[in-house]
């Protein structure tokens, strides 16, 4: 009887250890999946952010046609100093929207999707003295722009946030 109890106890303990191990593996796997998804999102966020920053850096006049909280439209110069209009906006039915870039000289002003799963895109505008300007249309005297962008992972397990101050040298 004593031996029987020992065997049963041993099986129970071994089972508990195996369950703990399986649980550990599942938890580790989930954590790894989320971590990898986040790293992947960070990597895929770099290029849209860089494109936006480069475009805003090209701003040619300090009067922005649209200097709104969630969208921006302005005149930019290309490397030959020709003018073109650049427009960034979010579009989508859900909270995770697409980020669109529309440039007057590219593809007949056809918008291009440059990022998806964007949950927040905010612009702040500042004048020469660093005083915030009210968002609106045809806002003048803009000297710097602060961009805040949040992009979530495909499985919505996390998000990456970018914040950057841009000082266009030509305005």
């Amino acid at each position: 009887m004593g031996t029987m109890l020992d065997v049963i106890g041993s099986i129970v303990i071994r089972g508990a250890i195996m369950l703990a191990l399986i649980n550990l593996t599942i938890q580790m796997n989930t954590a790894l999946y989320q971590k990898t998804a986040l790293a992947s999102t960070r990597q895929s966020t770099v290029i849209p952010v860089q494109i936006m920053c480069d475009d805003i850096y090209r701003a040619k006049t300090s009067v922005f046609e649209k200097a709104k909280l969630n969208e921006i439209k302005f005149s930019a110069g290309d490397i030959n100093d020709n003018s073109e209009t650049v427009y960034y906006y979010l579009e989508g039915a859900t909270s995770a929207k697409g980020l669109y870039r529309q440039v007057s000289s590219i593809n007949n002003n056809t918008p291009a999707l440059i990022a998806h799963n964007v949950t927040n895109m905010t612009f702040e505008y500042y004048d020469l003295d660093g005083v915030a300007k009210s968002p609106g249309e045809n806002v003048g005297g803009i000297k710097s722009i602060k961009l805040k962008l949040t992009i979530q992972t495909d499985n919505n397990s996390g998000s990456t946030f970018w914040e950057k101050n841009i000082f266009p040298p030509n305005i």
Partner: protein
Amino acid sequence: MGMSKVILASGVFVIVGMYSLSFRAADNATSVVALAQAIHSQTEQIALAGTKFAAVDLGGSASIPTILPSGSVNLMGGTVSYRTDPLPSSKLKVTSVGTYGGHSVTYLATVEFVSPRWQVKRIYEVPDAAEFSRLN
């Protein structure tokens, strides 16, 4: 300790070790992005300096020199190469290429004489697909 316990413990160590390596790879991917951004920013500053060098080399006279400034300078751990070309209306174009840590950024600037010196009036970063690919 019995052999079965040794095998069990070894298995646990192997599993945890494999996950640790994978976590490390994911962390590394994130830090690579941050490092690439930092190097890119540094390269931009180096390239920007080239446009200033060209403007300074032009001196304090409105007359355009017969030999236009060009050069290569090592600074901030990188290198900037700049070249000046004529443009209409007494303006000049400066092409400045900054390199640092395997990254490369090119600026095109228009310089104009505004007494008492040459000044950068317009400046654009040249889009470069290869540099974009280095960012992620």
